[in-house]
């Protein structure tokens, strides 16, 4: 579908490519080619000294250009590939203008086939700045981006990879991981407090977190959700159901205990108050026959049944993963979602 060879040719010659990423359209040049980097700085009218993040294939490639210790790699491999930019200490091997004045560099390993394949084949980092002029909004279609450009600017672009309108995802979340306590420098779709804890400020953000967790676990999976009333468990479940291919409306199963949508099972243990009911209703059996399950009020299962589920589902013997997720109320609009 994409002509990777053509993109590589353009990059090799110091060209500027407009390309879709997992978030917005990006401007890509070879981050090790000083001329190409100058071109992008000129194009964006960007203040030199402000960093430009780079796409890399994986941690291996990142480590050639930046300081990433084994510990951060282990911790962050659960977030990446994904919509995050990690700010780390640079090794000053990239062209001038890529690293910030303080020597840091933004590393992006996107959840995007085209870019991962491209970086792999190209073998060098590629700039990952969004397709816009400095200080303007990012673009979700090539058409709207081109409209904002003067004729001169348009002529600077050497290649456009147009895949039409991208979904309205926010740019990546930028986190500075140089200190033990991580700092969120820009809020993207997914906000993390630490690697296992997400912060949601709206229903949409909860949906995004659900999507992210689901994509990370593409195999049969049981989500055990716990948390108070109104912390987003149902919204999370609805989104998982949607991703599992359910076309109908997914409504609260509180009164009927569970709703079976074929591939997806939505269970709510709110009304379960007695362990006998779990056997009587054959809940464990019903769960174990499914591919993708969300169980609200999982804490009502109790320790023994939870251990039983764990045994059935978790590797090495099990065939899937049981993921426990806790939802906490922070304030009226904010929820903390812990994996």
């Amino acid at each position, binding site marked *: 579908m994409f002509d990777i060879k053509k993109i590589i040719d353009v990059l090799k010659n110091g060209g500027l490519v407009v390309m879709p990423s997992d978030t917005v359209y990006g401007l890509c040049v070879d981050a090790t080619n000083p001329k190409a980097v100058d071109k992008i700085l000129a194009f964006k009218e960007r203040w030199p000294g402000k960093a430009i993040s780079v796409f890399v294939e994986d941690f291996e490639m990142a480590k050639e250009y930046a300081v990433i210790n084994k510990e951060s790699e282990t911790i962050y491999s659960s977030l990446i590939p994904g919509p995050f930019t990690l700010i780390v200490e640079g090794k000053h091997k990239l062209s001038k203008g890529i690293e910030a004045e303080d020597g840091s560099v933004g590393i992006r390993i996107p959840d995007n086939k085209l870019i991962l394949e491209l970086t792999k084949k190209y073998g060098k980092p590629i700039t990952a700045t969004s397709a816009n002029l400095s200080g303007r909004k990012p673009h979700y279609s090539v058409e709207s981006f081109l409209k904002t450009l003067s004729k001169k600017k348009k002529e600077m672009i050497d290649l456009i990879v147009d895949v039409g309108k991208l979904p309205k995802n926010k740019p990546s979340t930028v986190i500075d991981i140089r200190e033990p306590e991580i700092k969120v420098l820009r809020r993207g779709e997914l906000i993390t407090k630490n690697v296992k804890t997400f912060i949601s400020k709206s229903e949409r953000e909860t949906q995004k977190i659900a999507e992210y967790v689901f994509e990370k676990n593409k195999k049969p999976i049981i989500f055990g959700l716990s948390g108070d009333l109104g912390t987003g468990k149902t919204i999370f479940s609805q989104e998982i159901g949607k991703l599992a291919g359910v076309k109908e409306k997914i409504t*609260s199963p509180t*009164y*009927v205990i569970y709703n079976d949508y074929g591939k997806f099972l939505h269970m709510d243990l709110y*009304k379960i108050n*007695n362990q006998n009911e779990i056997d*009587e209703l054959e809940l464990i059996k019903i769960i174990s026959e499914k591919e993708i399950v969300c169980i609200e009020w999982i804490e009502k299962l109790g320790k023994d049944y939870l251990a039983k589920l764990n045994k059935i589902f978790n590797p090495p013997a099990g065939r899937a993963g049981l993921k426990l997720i806790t939802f906490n*109320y922070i304030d009226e609009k904010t929820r903390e979602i812990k994996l």
Partner: protein
Amino acid sequence: MKILAIETSCDDTCSALLDDKKIISNVISSQINLHKKWGGVVPDIAKRAHKKRIDAVVERAMKPLEIPLRQRRLPPLTKGGFNAIDVIAVTQGPGLAVALGVGIDKAKELANKYNKKLVAVNHIEGHIMSSFFNHEIKFPALCLTASGGHTKIILIRDFGKYEIVGETLDDAAGEALDKAAKMLGLGYPGGPIIERLAKTGNEKFLELPKVLRDNKILDFSYSGLKTSFYYKIKDLPKEEIAKHIRDYAASYQNAVFEHLIRKFKLAVEKYKPKMLMATGGVMCNLELRKRLRKMAKELDLEIIMPYKKELNTDNAAMIGLVAYYKAMRGEFVKNIDKLDREARMGL
């Protein structure tokens, strides 16, 4: 046509006897006493109680067909009774899977034993039709049905021709009332308790959000309202809640009903029906009935609602009435042994 109907979709074991469209008996063995302790429908209790009660409930429903006492000696009693039945009707879904199974098993057993025709009925269709008793119907009609498990607006073009034009995106209206009652430390079922307290409460005491403001959407959403209410009262001292319990009940009930009526009215404006209907357990609430009648009057439309409480909540008479129309159309279960519950049955 004599119809024996059985309904066990949730927490009531029900059976009714109909002669065409006329109710001869309508027995509801309400299990509310059993459930009170748990603050909701408890499935195993529902199942056990359904199993324990089904025979007695069916027998009670059949009682009008009994042969007068003095002739009793000759033919076996119940057998004579069942011979007079033409059709057996049963709720197939939607509902609580295990509970549905008890009614279906009983209906199959009776149909096979006495060689009767069987009609499988959708519970929601039953609720819709529950307002048809003693009323003439004009099509198209628009029906609001709200209970613990459902909240829907249904456009009815003819008997058996339904289109859901709006429904809840999350919690049902009755569930929303039940959950709020639990938050306030009140018992189960929450609806009637909240209604009683709300009568003398100030509905403007607590400000709650107006949900789904978009006038193009005919759906309902109660989870946001529930959440908002929960976090407003969560950290209040018990004495404070107790002091204003009537005001909290009134404010919450008002928000639940405002949402129901606002969306129903929008649907009426969009579909321009000739008649309105309102059914389901939540219609037991007199305040809601009053508001609905007022709305209908303003729109210059007739509104029909089940004429007594037992027809609002789950009951078998409504299942029998649906079965009557289905039997007239020849819609019987073809293979009785293969009939299975359908917990998420659509209309």
